[in-house]
């Protein structure tokens, strides 16, 4: 699946987007965050405060317990500050 990162999540990860292939044991958004944090210090830093990072699955806001299932795109970002 495609992973996108925005704002300071993007800056800390060091990537705007990437293709990821999490193992089958990764079922939820929270599982995926835990798995990403194991991939390196940059991910560790980006998700240091997991409660602050928001996620969207296929362009819709989701909670950490949302099932990834067949989603093709996941995005991580800070709380929104538009408007």
């Amino acid at each position: 699946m495609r992973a996108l990162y925005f704002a300071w999540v993007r800056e800390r990860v060091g990537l705007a987007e990437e293709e990821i292939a999490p193992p089958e044991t990764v079922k939820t958004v929270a599982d995926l965050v835990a798995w990403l944090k194991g991939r390196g210090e940059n991910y560790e830093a980006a998700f240091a405060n997991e409660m602050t990072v928001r996620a969207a699955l296929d362009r819709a806001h989701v909670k950490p317990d949302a099932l990834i299932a067949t989603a093709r795109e996941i995005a991580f970002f800070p709380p929104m500050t538009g408007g």
Partner: protein
Amino acid sequence: MPLTILRVQKEPFDTAVETAPLMAGRGDIGAVVTFTGLCRDDGGSLAALEIEHYPGMAEEEIGRVVADACARWPLEGVLVIHRCGVIRPGEPIVLVATTSLHRREAFAAAEFLMDYLKTRAPFWKKQHGDGPQSGDWVEAKAADDAAAEKWGG
């Protein structure tokens, strides 16, 4: 169905030009409310805001917020334009306009749209300038969450 115009763009906008289609050829509209959000200069220390957004989702999320507003109030038209990219102090960032037969619903919907866009639309602001906050991302405000929550559901 209300007429809806939704757009994310780099360029500044002209409020009169953008809102004209909401009234064109209509004799039944009694109320037009517009909200314009401007880039503030923070006492002169801010040189520019850089607005990052999630292309695709930004438009979709604005659409969901507008659909929600249309379900709550009898609106005749809704316009939302949100800029991205570099924005200088004094320039407009966002324009929301609502039209309806009577004023109550146009006011309520415009305020609702801003409260929801602030907390739901995927935009993020980074500050550039010579102040201590230069290079920092603007932090989300608890007051904005509270404002959105007061509408319920």
